[in-house]
């Protein structure tokens, strides 16, 4: 099964992102990099990346003509999606185990959500 592992972070970022100082940011990035390599080596990796700040997002409504373009983000919140992994795991237990490792590496809570199963 495939799972989306989302990491949320505060709307306001310092120059060190959501981390208190440069040292912890560098360490978290290194740990996350190592975790990503592990995902790849063990065949769980589908895709992962970090997002630019939520204030850089734009909302498009193409259901009308011409499409309406507005400044994002789509939902107002104190915390926004900051990055995510898409992983391949045999079941939720394995996904939760990987999420715990990812959470530890990136120093953030991780939400694990399954993708719809592929139709047969």
């Amino acid at each position: 099964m495939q799972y989306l592992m989302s990491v949320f972070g505060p709307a306001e970022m310092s120059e060190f992102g959501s981390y208190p100082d440069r040292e912890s940011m560098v360490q978290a990035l290194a740990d996350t990099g190592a975790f990503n390599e592990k995902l790849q080596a063990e065949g769980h990796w589908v895709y992962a990346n970090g997002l630019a700040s939520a204030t850089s997002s734009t909302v498009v409504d193409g259901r009308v003509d011409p499409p309406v373009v507005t400044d994002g983000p789509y939902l107002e919140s104190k915390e926004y999606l900051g990055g995510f992994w898409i992983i391949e795991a045999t079941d939720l237990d394995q996904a939760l185990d990987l999420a715990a490792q990812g959470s530890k590496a990136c120093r953030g809570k991780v939400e694990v959500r399954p993708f719809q199963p592929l139709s047969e």
Partner: protein
Amino acid sequence: MVASLAKRFGDLDIAEEATAEAFATAVERWPADGIPPNPGGWLTTTATRKAIDRIRREKKRDDKYREALLVMDHEPLEPLGAIDDERLRLLFTCCHPALALDSRVALTLRMVGGLTVPEIARAFLVQEGAMARRITRAKDKIRDAGIPFRMPSAGDLPVRVDGVLNVLFLVFNEGYLATGPDTDPVRAELTAEAIRLTRLIRSLLPRDGEVTGMLALMLLTEARRAARLSSSGELVTLDDQDRGAWDAALIREGHELVRERLNSGEPAGRYQVLAAINAVHTSARDIRDTDWSQVVALYDQLVALDPSPIVALNRAVAVAELDGPEVALAAVDRLEAALDGYHAYHATRADLLRRLGRSAESRAAYDRAIDLAGNTAEAAYLTRRRDQLG
């Protein structure tokens, strides 16, 4: 290659078959497509894909099986045997930590306990429709999120067993002292069901100390059930209970289990310590015969395992018997910030203040306890004690 795949997928058959399939594919393709730049890497990647495909096919079969189990209607309980293995896996699935706690309790009673939706709805004072939806949502999550239908891995087992015991203890406690005012104050059907399921999990994990401790705790508590309500429907506290009405067979079995754990020499978890405390109570002919220093020593052990304010409150009740109500009251008063909204905190204070002759303060504490108590039998008991104050 077989070893690395086996290590990764935890299944030697899959590793062997996937490797063989990868070589067969190579024999087929390489003459036509040419040998890839990194033949070893190509073989590993191909074998890995084959293994994942195979696991997916098998997983689908498991899923179908699990779904069939989840939708089946309750069958009468089978005798111990192969079916129990499935029942245990089902119990772990129903008590999975990814489900909300109230869903775990409802699903366990429905799927493993075989209670009907109306019965569970009544037990938790929820509308039948709402309870049916809660159970359906939980089943949907099991399917959609891929909650596995199998025994947890060895590394996860202690935490997962603890999760199952937590659910069973909730069911038991709701039966032993119902939280709401609109049901019977003591409900034998829930305590019996919790004991039955704990016996089941013990028959499958006989060496797990906490499972044994939980069963002993339930048995030693259940043994006193008949003595806990007076003929007028009032709660009877331990010191006033007719010990002749206690169930001697349950006490004997509970004591045997506690002895078994003591003889194991393994460090005791919280359920084992709670069982030991109840073993001390049920060994005494009357309240004055109780070995209170032993009870306090066990509570000290429990505080080290579980430093929660509720454990500290229960310890203080035992301290009152050993060192007097004044020492106990000082300990209880320190818990005010944490337990001000808890009826047992005020009931304990009320009793200690009464014993110290501080009637006005005692009355105020009884008032708070009665306000906060949901259980009708307990409220009736507290009201009588308050009205007896001079």
